[in-house]
């Protein structure tokens, strides 16, 4: 009895059975009917887009949803095809996935692990979704990934930057295209050393939760390796809105660089506050005081307005990239919605396409077949150059962008300029790296559900 599972409502919804088969009362258990959870049997397949629609990340979630809608359109053969034409794998035909029309359901994660799981469960149990994707925080990603592992569906993570997602909390059914804290640190450190020298004294302000810890650890490790000294690292509550009491003591500490390990609303406020204090006009130890934001999000950086000017950080992707894939994506997204996509939108679009492509290549929606197709998969033309989905931890390895707030923006979207594209070799680490959960971290085995 222990090998039972969630229901497959898609079966009836798609209508194959509804017509004839179930006219008489039949009682069946989930396991007897199909090979894996929510096997699509009709002419369509349902994907679940689980994004924050309420709460502080609602705008980011809305952008993710736009990207998914665009991806569905392209997969079903509509629009200009976007990145499907630049994608190195040519398995996708524009006729849905395996000939089945792509349909989707949406849900609200509220950026809360509980709500995100409830929403994902309803997609799996009620709507028959065979893949769940999206999200805008690592807490949600880890929680939903664990759920998908239990339920036997694939999870394609949205925006999640914590090492844990593919580190100590990695799961066989979960995949992440977005980069992570370690990569941010590894990419940023050399650029910072080049721009600001190797004898800096850094003061860290860190959001007091898992993502903050991994980011602080990563940035500390890679900057200290290049000669920087960490003067202090102070934790700030997630619910903090005013960071002045944390910034006021910075100058007294003798530090000449402030690292803000904050994301979203925290980042907007702490950066605004730091600039308000006039820190960047000061000189300490004979050097200009500098501020660094390890993870940038253009969408959120907009909230900090002119305060981002000249401040270094890293991103997964930026619309101003000039490779064919990025150009194609920006063109089709921009034409449809009137503004360029965010990095959250990009990673979600790519994840949707990668999943579809893996199913095509595997020839089956079976999660285990998809896992096999994605593991060790090398591709190109998706905006980040040559990319590898590493088999050991289901993390994408690709170039990382080091960016800087632009001094003279041309438009309201033109906030960041790319300083350097850090090559993938420089941000690659061993799968059992201590920051990634060490030797103990394991994917487990893929779970097809029923």
């Amino acid at each position, binding site marked *: 009895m222990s090998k039972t599972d969630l229901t497959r409502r898609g079966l009836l919804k798609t209508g194959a059975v509804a017509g004839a088969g179930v006219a008489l009362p039949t009682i069946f258990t989930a396991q007897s009917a199909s090979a894996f959870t929510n096997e699509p049997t009709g002419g369509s397949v349902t994907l679940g887009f689980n994004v924050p629609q309420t709460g502080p990340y609602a705008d980011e979630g809305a952008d993710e949803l736009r990207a998914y809608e665009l991806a569905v359109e392209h997969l079903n053969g509509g629009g200009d095809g976007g990145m499907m034409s630049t994608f190195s794998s040519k398995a996708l035909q524009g006729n849905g996935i395996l000939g089945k029309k792509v349909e989707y359901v949406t849900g609200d994660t509220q950026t809360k692990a509980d709500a995100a799981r409830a929403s994902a469960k309803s997609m799996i149990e009620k709507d028959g979704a065979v893949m769940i994707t999206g999200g805008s925080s690592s807490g949600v990603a880890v929680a939903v990934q664990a759920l998908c592992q239990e339920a036997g569906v694939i999870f394609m993570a949205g925006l999640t930057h914590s090492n844990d997602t593919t580190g100590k909390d990695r799961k066989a059914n979960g995949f992440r295209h977005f980069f992570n804290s370690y990569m941010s640190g590894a990419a940023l450190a050399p650029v910072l050393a080049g721009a600001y020298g190797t004898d800096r004294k850094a003061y860290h302000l860190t959001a007091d939760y898992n993502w903050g810890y991994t980011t602080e650890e990563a940035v500390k490790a890679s900057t200290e390796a290049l000669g920087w000294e960490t003067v202090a690292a102070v934790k700030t509550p997630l619910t903090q809105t005013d960071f002045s009491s944390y910034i006021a003591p910075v100058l007294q500490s003798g530090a000449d660089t402030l690292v803000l390990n904050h994301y979203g609303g925290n980042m907007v406020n702490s950066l605004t506050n730091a600039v308000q204090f006039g820190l960047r006009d000061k000189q300490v130890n004979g050097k200009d005081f500098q501020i660094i934001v390890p993870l940038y999000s253009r969408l959120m950086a907009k909230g900090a307005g002119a305060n981002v000017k000249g401040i270094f950080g890293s991103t997964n992707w930026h619309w101003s990239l000039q490779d064919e894939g990025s150009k194609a994506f920006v063109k089709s997204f921009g034409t449809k919605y009137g503004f360029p996509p965010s990095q959250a939108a990009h990673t979600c679009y790519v994840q949707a396409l990668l999943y579809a492509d893996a199913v095509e290549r595997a020839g089956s929606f079976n999660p285990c077949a998809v896992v096999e197709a994605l593991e060790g998969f090398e591709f190109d033309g998706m905006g980040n150059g040559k990319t590898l989905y590493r088999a050991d931890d289901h993390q994408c390895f690709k170039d990382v962008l080091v960016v800087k707030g632009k001094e003279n923006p041309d438009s309201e979207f033109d906030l960041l300029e790319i300083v350097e594209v850090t090559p993938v070799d420089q941000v690659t680490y061993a799968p059992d790296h201590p920051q990634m959960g060490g030797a103990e971290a394991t994917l487990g*085995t893929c779970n097809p559900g029923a």
Partner: protein
Amino acid sequence: MLGLDKKDFRLLVIVVALTMLAPFLLNPFPESSGLAQFNAGYPDLMQRFVIFGIFAIGFNILFGLTGYLSFGHAAFLGVGSYAAIWMMKLVTLNVIPAIIMGVIFAGIFALAVGYISLRRSGIYFSILTLAFAQMSYALAYSVLTPITGGETGLQIKATDRPILSNLEPGEIGRANLFGMDMRTSFELGLGDWLFTFNSGYYIAAVFMILAFYLSIRIFRSPFGTMLRAVKSNQTRMYYTGLNARPYTLAAFVISGMYAGLAGGLLVAMDTQAGPERMFWTASGEVVLMTILGGVGTLIGPVLGAGAIKYMENILSKINKDILHQWFAILPDGIENFLVTIVYPFVGKGWHLTLGIIFMAVVIFLPGGLVEGGQRIARLFGRKKAKGDAEEATQSTPAE
């Protein structure tokens, strides 16, 4: 029967019937119709209905009877969840010990918080409970990460090896009841209808019926009368030589244990515990559930819990595409117009609908949904319905 008078027994029978038949009642629409969107008869949501029903019933024992408005009840739910998941991670995957641990730990925590907070009354009491809950949340999210898992919370992992289990290497443990997986479901297809009978739901439902029965007994007991006396006039109690504190503290701990039971069940149904369940909005939610349903009534809190969870899970999933499908038969202009009108209230706008409903209920139905039901019953003027209505109000303590 069962120590209940006739009316209470009938109410209990109704609740039993409703919970047992929920898979039918909550799935009234055929699968292929557009209205299937409104079906709520899938395991996860049904489980949430009864679990949050338990939470609200427990809250109502404190708030409905004594009038003490706790603004930190979610903390007990959270503590119950953490206790339960640790039990599963370390000792056994059977849900019963986990739930028991959840209840015990929540009870102990409630005893400590209640002992301190009940030194004050009114809003001072509310703020004390709020303060304890917010501290629990903040610490669980940050410095207690080694115990609570912080932001990502706790799940059962492949590396967890509970002592009393015989998992194969690499196998991820699953919550079960003496071997029965919580997610086992039987599906019944009847024509275009599909009904799901989930073992986890029925286990939770049994717990809710027991909790409901216990709450009726408490409401009708001398202890319950004493609690109502606390609400109506505490000073007079003192003058008659009675100390109210032990009674209110007992009520507080009982309602904390209800919250712990709900927390333990949440973990049993979905093996995950996170700090957001202790945030003040979660405490506020149970207050809203209780008031929305009808404070001090027996059935009200359950209805309120159902209403809020329904909106959270069903309304939030309606997107523009679905709206277009619904109105597709209408001419384009009207279709677009209707979609534009409805769209702000569903999907990402579900909070707006929630806010409007709160306001509407409080303004027009001070007695909550129960009062709404009574009014409808009165409208039809059927004698039997009137009897039911009286039964529901009967438990409302005098102000």
